[in-house]
């Protein structure tokens, strides 16, 4: 199999991904590793969680890997993304490409990480300075809606019951 994609709750193994893309016809292997960083937009970050729409995310990852294979003569692609809670320094995402020569591996790896970030339904929640936030596009949305939602849906149910009585 020339394309491997996976969302995982466990740690990402660089060795395992390398073994998946190694091929005797390939003289170049390029890795991109996204690492949990201690800062975001000038605010301290202590940890992260990632949440995904899993079936769609894996399908989209496979789709962009196919697109890369159409555009560049690369041999094998492996892409893995973490979901769940991650500490600083952990690998959040890994993209590995092998090809006969380095140029196409470098270019397609760069394309793959940009496309993954833009097209794959994965959301990041930051824990750190000032509280907990969902990162949704350019927005940092405070992650404190859970309780509000419950009280408001009870309110809405109350309103519906009231209307039914009328």
């Amino acid at each position, binding site marked *: 199999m020339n394309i491997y994609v996976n969302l995982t709750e466990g740690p990402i193994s660089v060795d395992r991904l390398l073994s998946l893309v190694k091929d005797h016809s390939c003289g170049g292997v390029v890795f991109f590793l996204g690492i949990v960083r201690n800062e975001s937009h000038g605010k301290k970050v202590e940890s992260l969680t990632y949440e995904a729409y899993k079936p769609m995310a894996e399908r989209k990852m496979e789709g962009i890997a196919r697109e890369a294979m159409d555009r560049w003569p690369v041999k094998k692609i492996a892409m893995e993304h973490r979901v769940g809670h991650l500490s600083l320094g952990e690998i959040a995402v890994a993209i590995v490409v092998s090809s006969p020569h380095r140029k196409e591996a470098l270019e397609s790896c760069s394309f793959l990480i940009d496309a993954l970030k833009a097209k794959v339904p994965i959301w990041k929640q930051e824990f750190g300075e000032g509280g907990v936030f969902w990162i949704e596009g*350019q927005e940092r949305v405070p992650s404190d809606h859970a309780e509000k939602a419950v009280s408001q*849906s009870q309110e809405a149910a109350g309103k519906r019951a009231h209307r039914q009585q009328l």
Partner: protein
Amino acid sequence: MKVKVYFFASMRERTGHEEIELTLDDGAKILQVMEALEERFPAVGEHLRICGVALNEEVCDPGTPLKDRDQLAFLPPFSGGSAISEGER
């Protein structure tokens, strides 16, 4: 007909649900689901309108008609979304 609706990230918190099942009139469109959600979950407010919509795991237009057992997902802007504007610049 019945459809499943999935929520993620802040939308999951705003609704208090990961997924719900809705019963709709035949011929209903995604827009009607959005109206029903806005009434049932006031905390959703305007935020529903900035979400992408996926029908059976493919991004689609809110005008799309639904059929029985469809799976609908409301997708807040993805966390890596800034890469789009960087790429387009």
